[in-house]
């Protein structure tokens, strides 16, 4: 059995020092060692996207990485998305538009949507469907997920375009 390695990973703003086997998957590290069970495992071949998290701000499938590869990195999981008790607009969109049923694909779908909107803040329906081609959902038929992402895109654009309040400049 290979020697354990020391890693330092910042997850949702908290720094963790751990000793892990080199073969420990990042998703198992998050779920089993750090007890952040919001990130899910839906397959074993990187198809489904349920394990999607952000690594240094970019989406990755955490089942396809080893924890040791995340040494020194910043990881954001679904648990870290809401800010100060307020839901992220994407989370809000999924709630408003019934973008989830069983909820299992949802954390990964939300993280993938985050990346999609980062790359393309004003996507068409077609662009949303193609942008989420790395994520499987078996419950919703995707239509309300598209609506959820559209809601989030609109909301995020509104607040980006909102004028600076009185008392500012």
């Amino acid at each position, binding site marked *: 059995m290979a020697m354990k390695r020391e890693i330092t990973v910042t997850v949702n703003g908290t720094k963790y020092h751990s000793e892990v086997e080199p073969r420990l998957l990042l998703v198992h590290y998050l779920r089993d060692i750090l007890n952040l069970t919001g990130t899910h495992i*839906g397959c*074993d071949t990187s198809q*489904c996207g349920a394990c999607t998290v952000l690594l240094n701000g970019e989406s990755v499938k955490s089942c396809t990485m080893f924890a040791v590869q995340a040494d020194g990195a910043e990881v954001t999981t679904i648990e870290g998305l809401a800010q100060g008790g307020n839901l992220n607009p994407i989370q809000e969109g999924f709630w408003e538009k019934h973008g989830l049923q069983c909820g*299992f694909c949802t954390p990964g779908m939300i993280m993938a949507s985050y990346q999609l909107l980062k790359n393309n803040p004003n996507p068409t*329906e*077609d662009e949303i469907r193609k942008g989420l*081609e790395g994520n499987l959902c078996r*419950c919703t038929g*995707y239509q309300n997920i598209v609506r959820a992402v559209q809601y989030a895109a609109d909301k995020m654009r509104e607040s980006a375009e909102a004028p600076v309040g009185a008392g500012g400049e």
Partner: protein
Amino acid sequence: MGIAAMLGTSIKRREDPRLITGEATYVDDIKLVGMLHMAVLRSPYGHARINRINTEAARNHPGVVAVYTAEDLKGAVQAVPVAVPLGKIAEGMGVRGPLAEGKVRFYGDPVAVVIADDRYTARDARDLIEVDYEPLPAVVDVEKAMQPDAPLLYEEFGTNVPFSMHPPTDDIDKVFEETKANGGVVVKTRMVNQRVAPVPMETRGVVASYNKGEKKLTLWSSSQIPHLLRDLLSAQVGLPQHQVHVIVPEVGGGFGCKLNVYPEETVAAFASMRLGRPVKWIEDRSENLAVTIHGRDQVDYVEVAATKEGKITGLKVHGISDLGSYCQVFTDVIMIAFGFPVSCGAYDIPAIHLSADIVFTNKAATDAYRGAGRPEATYVIERAIDLVARELGKDPAEVRRINFVKPEQFPYKSAAGAVYDTGNYEGALDKALAIVGYEQLRAEQQQARAQGRLMGIGLSSYIEICGFGPKGSAPVGLYESARMKVEMSGDVMVYTGSSPHGQGEETTFAQIVAEEFTIPVDNVTILHGDTDSTPEGRGTYGSRTTAVGGSAVFEAAQRLKEKMKQIAAHMLEASPSDVTLEDGKFFVAGSPQKAVTFNEVALAANFSNTLAPGIEPGLETTVFWEPQACVFPFGTHVCVVEIDKETGEVEIKRFVAVDDCGRQLNPMLVEGQVHGGLAQGIGQAMVEGVVYGEDGQLLTASLMDYALPYAHELPHFETDSTVTPTTVNPLGVKGVGEAGTIGSTPAVANAIADALGVAHVDMPYRPNRLWEFIHQQ
């Protein structure tokens, strides 16, 4: 100010906050002190004898606590339960213990388990188990399995066919002859409803925890049936029911495949009982595709007779159901019990002949998957209608109209057996055709054909049977339970025997209660999944949760409302029959100024020392509600496709679904169920299919090989509805969970046949298959 009516409004789901923040608990999120992990060693062969199993190296691996095979289970664990063992199955054919004994009969057949400190160690040790297999010839084609020279799965029975049903054909033959003699037509074809995998995004999993001191087994399982699981598994492991506590946490999808009692659940329980420590098993996706039950896998030979005007005079269906290699709970009855009774579909067909063979093959067991028998039956009748239309050169919409059961014929007893409650089939058809612009589309199709393009329009006017079920419809009573408590604060707790896993009943049931009590929906909490706190229930499947579970909730609310009226009447010094409940207040009708609030009555019931004589304190009731009949949702789907001649690729240009599930309690959730159903029905038609090699090797063993639709592979659905309430339950609701799947597959199939201008093409409509078909023509 009034409380807005709750039923019929699309309020947001109560379930969502925990799910969108990653704070929900699924079975793999459960961690118990001292918990061990189980890994399963499975057969790599489709059919083989087991000569020897050597577990010594595995047992000695550091971190391994135990290794078990069938030998260890002897006498301690009973067979996988089969609800209705037909024919030779009642003699033991296809009935198995949880681990393979002497033979393996399908790829993935569980042979041994390793129990270790952590999941990585369990898998390391699993690789050290040596099994001496002697491969045997396998049979994976259901019709080949029926041949006298086919390899036998259960040699002692001398056949692969445990049960057949071949009634005499004299009557139907006469109908066919008369029809032909009168200038009518008889059309026949063979069609395959291919094997598919349910693929819920969460695989199966279980945590079994046996407390030796209390002799109590607690089982967390990703299941659709908490009580049935408790009832059946307790018998398997030899514990009284009350010593087994099943808790179903969040479940990431089921679609029928978690309506079962699986070997791994039983073995994990056994291991925990032996070791006195919690044992967790989580299925990986490759296991899930290999051993969690598969759906469909039916071959049908259909013959249909019709007058030259298009009126169907008779239908003959010979169904061959591929059971796989053994029976899970409903394997042997899916086709015969659930599909056959609705073989006439939405149509008034006077004569039908049904015959059946059910057959074992070297594949995983089949069982209930979204629709469970009804998609197969609907596929047959909807294709038959189009075959008749094609033969007569008539519009398939017209042939449907001519044959529909008419509104005045309800309740309608079908020649195939089912009694349909209510329906307005032409209404749904008209609406769907209007939305899609049918006339215009047919004109476009003419133009497209003139240009050599392959454009097709397919209809499906389906019915389905759900809301199980009434007395006699199943081997056990299929009632549903609800225990309702009104707390002294006025908050209402409801414990339902239903077990939703994405359907949203924590929301819709709360809406029912809020409406009946005229209180804010936020004051109502719906709980489910725990056999210690919810009364004996039957679970969620068969589109029954709202129709049956919701009716139990409704009845419970009525009972408590009556009691509260009595208490309020006493407080108001009035007669209970004069008291009304509106806007959260009880008052004498006509005198709203003198009222007592819902909360005041709740407090009085739980706290008061001056309740009227004859009134028992407290506000709690338990209802077991049994429907008198099944319910029959219906609808029409329209699919428009264009096939690229050069590549065989299909573009679904439009998909319209008009579904009628009776009264809609939360339209947004109804629409969501339709979307999900459409995705699975279209998925089967377009890309899905479990494939085995001739030797029984599973070829679609991961999501790299088992195709599922992704977001960009599905069209934008255009959905609408008609509302034809049922008289079967007080809510007027039918079911909607499976209807989308049942109706959509034939719509796609009909569109493809229409595009190609042929009688029939088997699914799935993958580019390579269509390309070959086109270029062979």
